[in-house]
């Protein structure tokens, strides 16, 4: 959302039936409505315009204050910011993506209580890639065809590769965290690998196709998680030495 004039906001909402949708929220930056038009809030929105291709005006009622539930936790706030930035810029205007909408809804609704919001974000990003036509094939190894022992993903084809056939090419492949195969929720290192994996394909396909970079909040989230993962592995190494 961007301020427009003194008290109005240009708002982007993600809807189930109409996909990403712009509108002008009159008084949206004012005292009465500012709490409604926060990134990550679930809003019952109403769009009005004389013609379908006009910007039109949006009015809304707050249903779930997802933003407020993330205020106290910097990591959850970053997750929310990254998800909103991707939803606002990766999806085409007014094309329904019900699966992406449902995934974002689950991510935001569970943000306050979810012990692994990063795993949910990575899964949602993989869903978004699939919905846009750039889905990853994690069902079997691209080399052997086997469905077990999958540990990497080819950065070119987006297909999974098992650990054994990866061999000396493993440094060129992207690590595939187990939580993306449905095993557990992962740890900080797995979340970092997951963000790197989906980030690579988002940057190359979803954003690169439009000659746009990955949104800054998503880049910043990955950098932050890299720092946390390094901190965690450093602490684990210190504990082992003791």
């Amino acid at each position, binding site marked *: 959302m961007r301020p427009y004039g003194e008290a109005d906001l240009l708002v982007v909402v993600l809807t189930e039936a109409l996909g990403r949708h712009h509108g002008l929220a009159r008084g949206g930056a004012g005292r009465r409505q500012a709490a409604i038009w926060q990134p990550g809030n679930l809003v019952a929105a109403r769009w009005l315009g004389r013609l379908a291709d006009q910007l039109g005006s949006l009015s809304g009622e707050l249903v779930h204050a997802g933003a407020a539930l993330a205020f106290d936790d910097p990591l959850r706030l970053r997750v929310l*910011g990254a998800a909103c930035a991707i939803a606002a810029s990766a999806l085409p205007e007014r094309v329904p993506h019900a699966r992406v909408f449902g995934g974002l809804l689950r991510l935001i609704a569970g943000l306050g209580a979810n012990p692994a919001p990063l795993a949910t974000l990575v899964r949602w990003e993989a869903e978004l890639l699939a919905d846009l036509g750039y889905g990853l094939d994690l069902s079997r190894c691209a080399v052997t065809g086997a469905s077990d022992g999958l540990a990497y993903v080819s950065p070119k084809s987006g297909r999974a590769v098992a650990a054994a056939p990866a061999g000396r090419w493993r440094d060129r492949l992207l690590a595939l965290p187990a939580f993306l195969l449905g095993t557990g929720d992962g740890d900080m290192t797995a979340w970092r690998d997951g963000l790197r994996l989906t980030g690579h394909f988002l940057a190359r396909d979803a954003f690169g196709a439009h000659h746009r970079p990955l949104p800054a909040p998503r880049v910043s989230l990955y950098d932050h998680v890299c720092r946390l993962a390094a901190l965690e592995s450093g602490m684990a190494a210190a504990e082992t030495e003791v």
Partner: protein
Amino acid sequence: MGGPEVERLILLLARLPGLGPRSARRIALKLLREPETRLAPLAAALAAAAQSVRACSTCGNLDSTDPCSVCADPGRERRVICVVEGIGDVWALERAGAHRGLYHVLGGLLSPLAGTGPEDLAIPTLLARIEAGAADEVILALAATVDGATTTHFLAERLRPTGVRLTRLAHGLPIGGTLEALDDGTLATALRARRSALS
């Protein structure tokens, strides 16, 4: 309508916050009808403000002196700095009379979605001020919005190594507010920030 001077006056007034062409015309008419009592004093006040009011080099507040009257006041708690988004927030806190320390005006909030970064705000000057040992406590009095929370977390992370006491404003029930009238976000935040009822 009334010559180029009047047109220009209306045009300039219409650009002010809260005013449009219609209200600008009404104000211009009022001023021009009473030049001695309205127009001349206003013009003199505007000229004096333009001549003397500057941003304080320490905190960013607007005043006719540098450092500003708040920074120069020896009666204030000089070891407590309240970080605010804008000068309007300084005025609001001064009206409330609740803060007796100093201020630091950021000039906005970090907004990754809008592309506002730390270099666009007065964050380097705040860090320099705190690293120079200017404070024992920093109160992060920023808006209860996503951008406000992002800025609060960013500043807390940056200021943590200095060892200064970091606090932020509470979120919760407004004075005179009832539970059923609150949105669920404020209610949940207020419940999380509950404190002992025994004073």
